Structure formats: structure tokens, C-alpha cells
């Protein structure tokens, strides 16, 4: 018996399969009883976690329907284990019995207001007569610090990194046929804190390489597929004819790198992999001077960091710190979790259930900072707070507990009006019914006066032109 199956997205199908296919665009939490027909356009790996509620595993898939609408579907624990093997990239599935809620934009970058959770009772059925269309570009990136094993191997690798440097085009004469080939070297760095030179050959050097040179100071992210790893100059990556380069791709890895770079990568120094070390390249490393703003800029823009946190660099001094705030909390020496105060002087914790009389102290400080433009309250934690206050939280506690509080007061007083350069994160935090701007210090650096002067002189010059 022949079965004719045709699928139309919005009307019910004339088939023996009694299901009405909903377009993803029509799904919402108040819609019951839907079935969708979607292709898996991205599949994440299984992630195992351990939090206060225990252990678990989770993975997610990106689903796309015929209209091109996308939605993320997440599965935890039993559902994750049930469906992980079933979902394959590029295959089409009928799915029903999922639960919709508002998308968590922090973890979900798919363009949809909702996200779907599938549980053990959800139904997932592979549509066997559909062609499998795997999205053209799949990468499996090798972190820069793990390139070693690939040297001189036949295997081609993929990398992703933030562009640190772009050279001009060089002309190399190929020995084989005496032809001149253009070549351009770019340096990329990733969050393994290592950097690497990638040699672009031929049309990649002149085409996309030239584009990278133009957009260099925006610190673009490049994802490169199919690179040859050679031991020329220690270790180099070279493009071949089938190499594909994507600039600022719209992928999860790219976003992760972007966030890392914004928060700490841009001020970091990278160790170069490969023996040809490139000392002092000519381009100014835009580190402490990129995204420079005055405190007033941040406080005058209450909508900064509305959807995702934004990062800036600023030079300021701590101008006021309340000496009666709780500047630190106690943590367990073994599991590092916060302690609750117990009777007497022993502390117990939420997680380990151990009692300790000698806990660790971790800073949590809120203080006011000032610069030439204005002032702002900022939060500092751990190492950053220790740099500003000038002593460890444990030592500060000792000073505070003394009957003569003058050592404590002096320590706080000394910490004020010392200029530092801060890398700050600005985000909006829910506060009762309101969303308040919160500035958190992520990195503290000493002021390099020669560099600051140069920066200021540039700023002055730019106001004149």
C-alpha cells in the first residue's frame, strides 16, 4: 500500500498520519497539543554539571523548520540521555509534548523569544523520508595550546581565535614553478592564553586578509576550517586551497571567545606558540586604552548592558568606602562555599556540612570611585578588592577586630585616591521591581603613566582635528 505524504506547514495534512504540523513561529507556552517538523541545525555536546541540587547532564539542539524559524530545545538528565543519540545533525524530526517558556538569553543565542524543554514524555520521531541536509560548515576547533600533536600530520585542523595582528602582503616565489604567490600572516589568540601565526596564501591573503587588516582594531574573531600544520618556524598554520575563513561567525564558540576577550583577553599577554617569536609588533596593542570611558559615561547611560553585559576600561580613584559594611564573607577551606554564622565562633556551611573555626575570607566590597568626569559606585571581589584595599581580607578582619580600630581606618584611608585602571563590567540587575545599573570591577591594573600620557595626548590631538 502506498502512502502519499505531503507536508504543508499551515494546513492539516491529507495523510494517514493524523498530525497537524505547527510552524515554529506559532508556538507559544499557551498552545497545547502541537507537533513540529524540524531539522536539527546544531547539536551541542552533553554537559555534566554539579550544583546545589546535585549532579546532572544537559544538552541542547537548535531546531529549524521550513520557514526558517529557529528554536532551541534543551533536555536534562533522563530526557537528555534518552534523546542524545536520537538527535543527529541535519536530520528531520517530528516533535511534540515539549514545554515552552521565555528564552534565557544568557545561555540561548537562538533568535526566538521562547525556548523549548523536552522531558522524558516528549515524543521525538525521525522523519525517515526526508533528505539529510547537514549545514555546510561544521568546525571542530583545536585550541591553540593543543596544536603540537598535529604537526606534520596529514590531518587538517580548524582553529578559532581573536585577531591580534595582521601583516602586510608579502610576495613569495614558489620554488616549484617560479610563480609569485601572495602571503599574509595573521596572529590569532584564544583563551588558552596562547597565540599563533596563521599564514594566508593566495586569494585568501589578498581578499579576506586585506579585509582583516582593515578591521584589525575591532579585534575580529576568525574561524578557519582546514588548515595545514607544519613545523616551519617551529609551528605554523597554513591555508590550503580548500581552507574556509569566517570572520565573526555567528556561532557559540565565537560568542564565547568574544565574551572572554572583552572581559579579560584584550588586556592579557599571550605566549606565542612556535619558535619564531614576534617581538613588539608595530600595531599598538589596544589593551588598556580600548573602550575607554569616563565614569560619567556609564552612569549617564542607565540602559547600558541591558541585554548582555558590556565592558569598558576606565581610570579612576576610590574616593569613598563605608567602613561599616560587611566587606568580606567567610568560606569553607575545602569546598569554597559561603558559610553561615553559627553559635559561638564556629561556622558551618550549606554544602559540606562541616564545622570550622578557621575559615577563608573572601572580599565583597562596594565603594565609590571618582574620575575627572564624575563618580560611580562599583563592586569589587576577591583579588581586585585585595589590590585596591592593599591587604588580604583575613588581615583586614584582624585589624577590624582590634579594640583600637585605627589600623583598620588607616588601611582604608590609604586605599583612597590611588589611581588605577579598571576593566569593568556594566550590567542591569533586577532590584525589587526595578532594574538597576551595576558596575563590577573585573581587572585592576596599575597606571602606566607614560602610556596614559600618550593616550591623553592622542585624545587632545583628536579634539583638535
Amino acid at each position, binding site marked *: 500500500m502506498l502512502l502519499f505524504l505531503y507536508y504543508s506547514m499551515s494546513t492539516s495534512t491529507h495523510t494517514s498520519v493524523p498530525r497537524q504540523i505547527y510552524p515554529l513561529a506559532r508556538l507559544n507556552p499557551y498552545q497545547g497539543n502541537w507537533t513540529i517538523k524540524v531539522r536539527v541545525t546544531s547539536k551541542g555536546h552533553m554537559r555534566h554539571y554539579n550544583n546545589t541540587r546535585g549532579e546532572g547532564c544537559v544538552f541542547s539542539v537548535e531546531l529549524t523548520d521550513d520557514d526558517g524559524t529557529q528554536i532551541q530545545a534543551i533536555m536534562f538528565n533522563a530526557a537528555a540521555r534518552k534523546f542524545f543519540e536520537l538527535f543527529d545533525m541535519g536530520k528531520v524530526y517530528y516533535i511534540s509534548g515539549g514545554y515552552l517558556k521565555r528564552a534565557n538569553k544568557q545561555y540561548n543565542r537562538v533568535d526566538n523569544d521562547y525556548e523549548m524543554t523536552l522531558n522524558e514524555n516528549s515524543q521525538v520521531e525521525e522523519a525517515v523520508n526526508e533528505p539529510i541536509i547537514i549545514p555546510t560548515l561544521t568546525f571542530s576547533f583545536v585550541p591553540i595550546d593543543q596544536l603540537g600533536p598535529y604537526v606534520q600530520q596529514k590531518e587538517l585542523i580548524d582553529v578559532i581565535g581573536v585577531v591580534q595582528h595582521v601583516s602586510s602582503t608579502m610576495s613569495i616565489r614558489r620554488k616549484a614553478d617560479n610563480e609569485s604567490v601572495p602571503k599574509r600572516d595573521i596572529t590569532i589568540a584564544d583563551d588558552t592564553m596562547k597565540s599563533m601565526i596563521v599564514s594566508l596564501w593566495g586569494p585568501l591573503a589578498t581578499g579576506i586578509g586585506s579585509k582583516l587588516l582593515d578591521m584589525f582594531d575591532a579585534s575580529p574573531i576568525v574561524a578557519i576550517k582546514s588548515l595545514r600544520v607544519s613545523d616551519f618556524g617551529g609551528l605554523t598554520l597554513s591555508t590550503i586551497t580548500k581552507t574556509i575563513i569566517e570572520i565573526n561567525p555567528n556561532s557559540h564558540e565565537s560568542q564565547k571567545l568574544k565574551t572572554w576577550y572583552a572581559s579579560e583577553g584584550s588586556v592579557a599577554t599571550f605566549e606565542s606558540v612556535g619558535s619564531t617569536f614576534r617581538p613588539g609588533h608595530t600595531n599598538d596593542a589596544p589593551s588598556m586604552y580600548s573602550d575607554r570611558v569616563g565614569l560619567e559615561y556609564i552612569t549617564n547611560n542607565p540602559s547600558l548592558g541591558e541585554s548582555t553585559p558590556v565592558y569598558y576600561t576606565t581610570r579612576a580613584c576610590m574616593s569613598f568606602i563605608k567602613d561599616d559594611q560587611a566587606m568580606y564573607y567567610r568560606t569553607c577551606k575545602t569546598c569554597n562555599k559561603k558559610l553561615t554564622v553559627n553559635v559561638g565562633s564556629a561556622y558551618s556551611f550549606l554544602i559540606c556540612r562541616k564545622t570550622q573555626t578557621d575559615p577563608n575570607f573572601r572580599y565583597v566590597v562596594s565603594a565609590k570611585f571618582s574620575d575627572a568626569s564624575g563618580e560611580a559606585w562599583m563592586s569589587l571581589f576577591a583579588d581586585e578588592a585585595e589590590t585596591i584595599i592593599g591587604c588580604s581580607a583575613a588581615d583586614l578582619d584582624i585589624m577590624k577586630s582590634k579594640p583600637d580600630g585605627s589600623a583598620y581606618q588607616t588601611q582604608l584611608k590609604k586605599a583612597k585616591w590611588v589611581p588605577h585602571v579598571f576593566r569593568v563590567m556594566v550590567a542591569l540587575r533586577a532590584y525589587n521591581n526595578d532594574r538597576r545599573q551595576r558596575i563590577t570591577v573585573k581587572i585592576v591594573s596599575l597606571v602606566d603613566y*607614560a602610556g596614559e*600620557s*600618550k593616550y591623553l*595626548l592622542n585624545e*587632545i*590631538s583628536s579634539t*583638535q582635528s
Partner: protein
Amino acid sequence: MDTSKPAVLVNGGLLRGYVGQRVRTVAQVVRPDAGGLTGRSTDEKQIDVKGKMPAAVTTFVEVIGVADGPQSICAEIVTNFGDTFDANNFNQLCRHANGDFRHLFI
């Protein structure tokens, strides 16, 4: 702060415009001389400094005194400025202080 005897911020090239006036500059010490030292200004010109020097002189010194020639200063105060100094920054400062922003300076 004593503002009764203001000194103009100059480099080697600007010094000649203030002969007879009180000036201040930072120079790199090339060699000590009888009665002073020979210095190189932040714009690579020679400056002769006459006067009392500190006992030990660092690589860079600030000189405040009266210009007594197109490349010479009769120093009143010589201060050690250490061994690291960004000459380029100071040079640009001199240009601003005598150029578009001179109204902010003396």
C-alpha cells in the same frame, strides 16, 4: 606654589624664542661639563646647561632657569628625573603648551 617667577615649558626648538626669559625643560644628559652639563632635548637638539648640578645625576634631568642663548640655559634648579622618561610625551606637551593651548599655561 610659588607663581611669582613662572617658567615656560620648552623643548630644544622652542628655547630660542624665550632667550632672556625663565624656562623649564627636561633633557637627557649626554655628558657632564665644566660648570654644568650638555644635554639632548626631547626634540633631539643640544642644550647646554650651566649651573650647580646635583651630586649624582640621573639619565634625565629637569632644568629650570633663564635662557641665556638659543641653546643654553643658566640653571637655577636642576632636578633628577630618573632613568626612564617618555621623551615623546614631553615633547608633545611642549608643543601644546606653546601652541593651541598656550592660554592654559603661562
